[in-house]
């Protein structure tokens, strides 16, 4: 056993040794899911001699968040640039001193480079700039053309989009699918419906919990329950191995897809399904779901260089490149209007004009206020929906439980 420890120590030491570079600086970028920065890193390294960039990625946001927490709390491990999803950002805004104030690195003048509401999300009351926006989760609906054709439905994206002006129409279309399920999980659909219901969800803008009095939440819940009762859901948890496999198996015919999810769909479906997936407009009024920021932790030893890198990655040019790579839709108006984005088509999704589809969705969107414990509350609501799917609770019991859980959480 002790020999094992000795060996482990040697390995650990040599690993540390390997990290120290000659005389340059290595910037560590922490991300989750897919940011599509690989080419940008190479470009930045080429134009900034002496800087090396290493991205450390964690696939699931749910796994990334607690790690990020630990890094920030212990003051170690967060690297030099961290990605903050908008749901987590709200929590970190309560502790802005953990991050470098990007004003000190000349970020104040960048305000016109971002959609106004995106910019404001990462600025504190006294004007401190905590993060710079990367993408916005413009919503679309991804669907399998081949499965639609099998169900005797049109497969053309404009015709498919015309099938579902509202979520009620979406349910009616879903009922025509026999054998294969209509969508992947109630949790994902619920969240997309929820984000279209006005300017706040579980909290009002004064951070008061309004889950049981906000009609929008109840409406999203009831819409989703009707989908479950119509048997439309494949009932696989998003981000689980079954979900990953479901893309390949054709376990579901549609999936509400915020722009950032296109990269995941392509990765999980694999090259053999190229051209089978397509993107069209989402039912209801377009809205935003997700979207991220880059911030520089105070614990970084290279804050200046890290801030420069964050500015580069979130510039209109950086956002355009990330969009082309993984379809993360830009939050920079210049990038959104850039023909490179507007006219961009995605070859994997049958050359769908994703720049146009998501661009229209973004124009329709209003910012939604999330509030401190929005992720934890949403997790509980989604669990309650799953219990309905598993037939363990009636919809009424499940709703009562979700509300009760949320209240106990906020206490």
């Amino acid at each position, binding site marked *: 056993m002790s020999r094992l420890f000795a060996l482990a120590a040697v390995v650990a030491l040599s690993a540390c040794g390997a990290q120290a570079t000659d005389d340059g600086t290595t910037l560590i970028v922490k991300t989750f899911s897919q940011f599509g920065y690989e080419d940008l890193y190479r470009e930045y390294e080429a134009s900034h001699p002496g800087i090396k960039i290493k991205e450390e990625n964690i696939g*699931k*946001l*749910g796994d990334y*968040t*607690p790690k990020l*927490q*630990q890094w920030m*709390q212990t003051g170690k491990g967060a690297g030099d640039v961290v990605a903050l999803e908008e749901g987590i950002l709200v*929590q*970190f805004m*309560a*502790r802005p001193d953990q991050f470098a104030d990007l004003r000190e690195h000349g970020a104040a003048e960048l305000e016109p480079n971002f959609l106004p509401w995106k910019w404001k999300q990462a600025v504190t009351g006294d004007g401190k700039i905590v993060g710079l926006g990367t993408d916005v989760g413009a919503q679309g609906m991804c669907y399998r053309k081949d499965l639609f054709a099998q169900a005797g439905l049109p497969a053309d994206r404009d015709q498919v989009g015309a099938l579902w002006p509202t979520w009620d129409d979406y349910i009616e279309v879903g009922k025509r699918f026999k054998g294969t399920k209509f969508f992947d999980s109630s*949790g994902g659909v619920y969240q997309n419906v929820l984000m279209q219901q006005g300017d706040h969800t579980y909290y009002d803008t004064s951070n008061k919990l309004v889950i049981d009095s906000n009609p929008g939440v109840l409406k999203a819940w009831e819409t989703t329950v009707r989908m479950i009762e119509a048997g439309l859901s494949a009932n*696989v*948890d*998003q*981000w*689980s*191995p*079954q*979900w990953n*496999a479901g893309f390949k198996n054709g*376990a579901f015919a549609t999936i509400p897809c915020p722009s950032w999810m296109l990269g995941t769909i392509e990765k999980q479906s694999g090259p053999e399904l190229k051209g089978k997936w397509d993107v069209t407009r989402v039912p209801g009024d377009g809205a935003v779901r997700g979207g991220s920021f880059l911030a520089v932790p105070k614990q970084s030893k290279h804050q200046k260089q890290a801030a420069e890198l964050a500015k580069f990655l979130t510039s209109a040019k950086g956002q355009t490149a990330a969009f082309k790579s993984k379809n993360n839709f830009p939050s920079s108006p210049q990038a959104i209007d850039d023909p490179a984005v507007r006219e961009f088509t995605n070859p994997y999704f049958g050359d769908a004009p994703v720049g146009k589809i998501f661009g229209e969705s973004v124009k329709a969107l209003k910012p939604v206020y999330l509030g401190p*414990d929005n992720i*934890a509350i949403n*997790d*509980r609501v*989604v*669990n*309650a929906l*799953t*219990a309905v*799917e*598993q*037939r*363990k*609770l009636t919809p009424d019991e499940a709703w009562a439980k979700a509300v009760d859980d949320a209240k*106990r*959480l906020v*206490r």
Partner: protein
Amino acid sequence: MRSVTERLSPYLFVAPFFVIFAAFGLFPLVYTAWVSVHEWDIAGPGAFVGLDNYVTLFGDPDFWNATYNTIGMLVLATVPQLFCALVLASLLNQKLRGLTFLRMGVLLPIVTSVAAVGIVFSQIFDRDAGMANGLLGLLGVQPVDWHADKWSSWTAIATMVNWRWTGYNALIYLAAMQAVPRDLYEAATVDGASKVRQFFSITVPNIRPAILFTVIMSTIAGMQLFTEPLIFGQGGFAISGGSLRQFQTLSMFMFEKAFRDFDYGYGSAVAWLIFVLITLLAVVNFLITRRSR
């Protein structure tokens, strides 16, 4: 001078353990207690709240649910596991062909990483395409949604634990069995005792210390059960252990409170209660196993 060195050296020899224990055992224990009497969230240490976290905890149905789950899975995983290990050990204690091969074979599951075990067994117990449901289907049983109920999820998780640890315990028993004097068995055989009688009257009483050890170790491991149910849970909110927390264990509950809800004070209170519970169970185990001597 020499005498000082002589008097000091034994302490120096044992010091590494105590230094490491103080740094990685005692300090976290005390610090966790300190955190648990504070309101301590993402914004760092807040107000001193005394035992408030503990009071809330005792009224938290999710905590009691996690305790119930943990103990349920502990029983489901430990009892059959130790029983099978005993039987396995007495079989391996016979004169068999390829004994070393068989003895090493039971150790294989231990070498497998928990994550791999979790992933493979989660596929076996998958609702839509799992092997367990496939086999049940041959018997005409409807497919089971393993995540949906307590009994089904506990069975799946206990299976993983049993598969992994039975061989390990069997080897501990085997080592103890080999120290049992052979002449006891010879005398029993002369007296006409059957193999089964010999097992219960000679083997089991003679390896009681080993049994006590494995019971306590399994209890401690069972109280800290975390990875298997977490991997079994899957999805973005796997830490809740099922939609209705069907299989959330105490350590998962602790992790959820501390690192998902960022309520470090509350999470630390859970940690301390787990510690107290383990201590209590160990004492109870010890008393029971000792009294029946």
